[in-house]
């Protein structure tokens, strides 16, 4: 950049225009809209029963009461479900990443015979699928109903993530891999020693995608798991919280309210299942390499 344009840019930057303020205001409102539901739920979970019942809670706790969390944390089924989900998420992410790497790396090699056929097999699944019932019948036939494998195996590889990974691998200069080959390194050796260390940002991003999808997903658990001992946290939450909310919402006036959960406990349960995501999110957020995503769309 020449000196003249540099000063011009600097002058422009230092001048805050009304349109800048307006844009920041709009984005600020959008940020608040994203934040308020969470603030509200935290506020409800920490407020006293009286404050909740008299509808005084907005986005700041009224009174300060940890009781709801005490109830949630002393519920052994809730804790068990959380432990199970952590285990499930970690295993799923590891297996998914290994499988995705195994699939993506060979498919970057243009000389590989059958490459376009393999790609076709994979990409086609993004546009056509058997559907809920054939999936269910397959899981049933494989004897995986009511087994944690039914929550790991069927979604093990996402074609979308696979393509992101393949695009990233392709962008690594061939010459690096070739020099490794000349030194006598095998394909798998090259993959482990050269390609993977260069792909850390995309590996982190995809691990996050897989982990979040497993943590948040409940459709498969709803279909395949009937034993409540094996419920992942989302399904547990659905059973405990949503059912009570929906009943509350759709119940006739004056119907028995006896079985309904107190609002504070619902809110605390929701926070209980959300906090793990909130904890890892800021750490992983810096890996959302925007370049990673654009390859996916063009892929």
């Amino acid at each position, binding site marked *: 950049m020449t000196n003249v344009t540099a000063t011009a840019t600097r002058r422009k930057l230092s001048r805050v225009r009304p*349109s*800048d303020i307006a*844009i*920041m205001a*709009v*984005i600020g409102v*959008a940020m608040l*809209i*994203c934040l308020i539901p969470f603030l*509200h739920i935290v506020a409800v979970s920490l407020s006293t029963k009286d404050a909740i*019942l008299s*509808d005084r809670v907005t986005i700041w706790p009224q009174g300060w009461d940890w009781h709801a969390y005490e109830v949630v944390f002393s519920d052994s089924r809730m804790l068990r479900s959380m432990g199970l989900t952590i285990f499930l998420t970690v295993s799923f992410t590891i297996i998914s990443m290994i*499988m*995705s790497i*195994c*699939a993506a790396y060979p498919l970057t090699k243009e000389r590989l*015979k059958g490459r376009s056929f*393999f790609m076709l*097999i994979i*990409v086609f699944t993004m*546009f*056509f*699928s*058997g*559907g*809920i019932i*054939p*999936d269910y*019948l*397959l899981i049933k*036939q494989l004897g995986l109903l009511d087994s944690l494998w039914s929550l790991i*195996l*069927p979604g093990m590889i996402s074609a979308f993530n*696979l393509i992101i990974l393949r695009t990233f691998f392709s962008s690594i200069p061939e010459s690096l891999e070739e020099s490794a080959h000349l030194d006598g390194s*095998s*394909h798998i050796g090259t*993959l482990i020693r050269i390609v993977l260390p260069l792909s850390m940002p995309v590996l982190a991003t995809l691990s996050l995608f897989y982990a*979040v999808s497993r*943590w*948040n997903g*409940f459709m498969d658990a709803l279909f395949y798991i009937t034993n409540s001992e094996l419920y992942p946290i989302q*399904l547990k*939450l659905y059973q405990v919280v*949503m059912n009570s*909310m*929906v009943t*509350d*919402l*759709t119940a006739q006036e004056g119907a028995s309210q006896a079985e309904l959960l107190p609002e504070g406990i*619902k*809110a605390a349960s*929701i926070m209980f*299942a*959300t906090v793990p995501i909130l904890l890892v*999110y800021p750490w992983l957020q810096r890996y*959302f390499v925007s370049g990673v*995503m*654009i390859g996916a*769309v*063009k892929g």
Partner: protein
Amino acid sequence: MDQIIDQGSPTAELRTASKIRKSRWFRRDYQLYFLLILPIVYFILFKYVPMYGTAIAFQDYNLFKGISGSEWVGFENFTQLFAMSQFYQVVRNTLLLNLLDLLFSFPAPILLALLLNELRVVWFKKTAQTLLYLPHFISWIIIGGLVYQIFSNKGGLLNNLITSLGFEAVPFLTEKNHWLFVYLGTGIWQSAGWGTIIYLAALTGINRELYEAADVDGAGRLKKMRHITLPGIRSTIVVMLIMQLGHIMTIGFERPFVMGNTLVMDYSEVISTFVYKAGLQSAQFSLATAMGLFQALVGLIFVVGANTIAKRMGEQGIY
């Protein structure tokens, strides 16, 4: 090599030579094929076997007899399906909800990305992105919980506010037209921020010199947006539009399942929830599979159609 010469006949020579070539590429790449084995087995077992499983849409499927033992009934399940009034309702709802998303949820991340792109205070932009991406990482169950906490007519945050101002409580979740707004708004809330990532990525690809040239010509902010930024992300917009158009008949299960309730069934019952209820809750496997197959085929036609149109228009398309 000696062997080839020994064999004498020229055709045999060629055949052996090609065999050697073959074994050479295999010897060179066998590790790559080895890596591919499990993933390909995965795709065949968990993606293609269920496609074969759609055969039960043409059967009177019996769980104990399996696909091979069940009786073939041709298109009977489809005839039965097309005769159900519920069929038209769930197809209409699927199209309605997706069309609303296309009209409102699709442009939202584009607008947001354009605005984010104009932010020049770095810390503000970073904070904004962190917060705006967050809802994408929250499960639909939790979002459902948040929605009830805010929009419920019994103690919901918004209705508390409305009633404290002296107005009537609004039945956001129990009256179907209000529910549509909540459904739509929740979708935007969940996806708009994360959706910007793809457009922001495309924006980084725009040549900075274009902006500098426009500055020299005295172009204002809006002019630059219209003549440089938007054309710069045009192909990304088209690709995203094709994907969304292609999925107009396909609807996820979790969002309508969590957000729907018996009072708004007229709008909230969609193809995926119908398949779940008919197939897994009432064990009408063949009928539900027919519904799923219908959706998948129409979906495929839409994807191919949208892609063809995009290519005719001179865009890149998705395949």
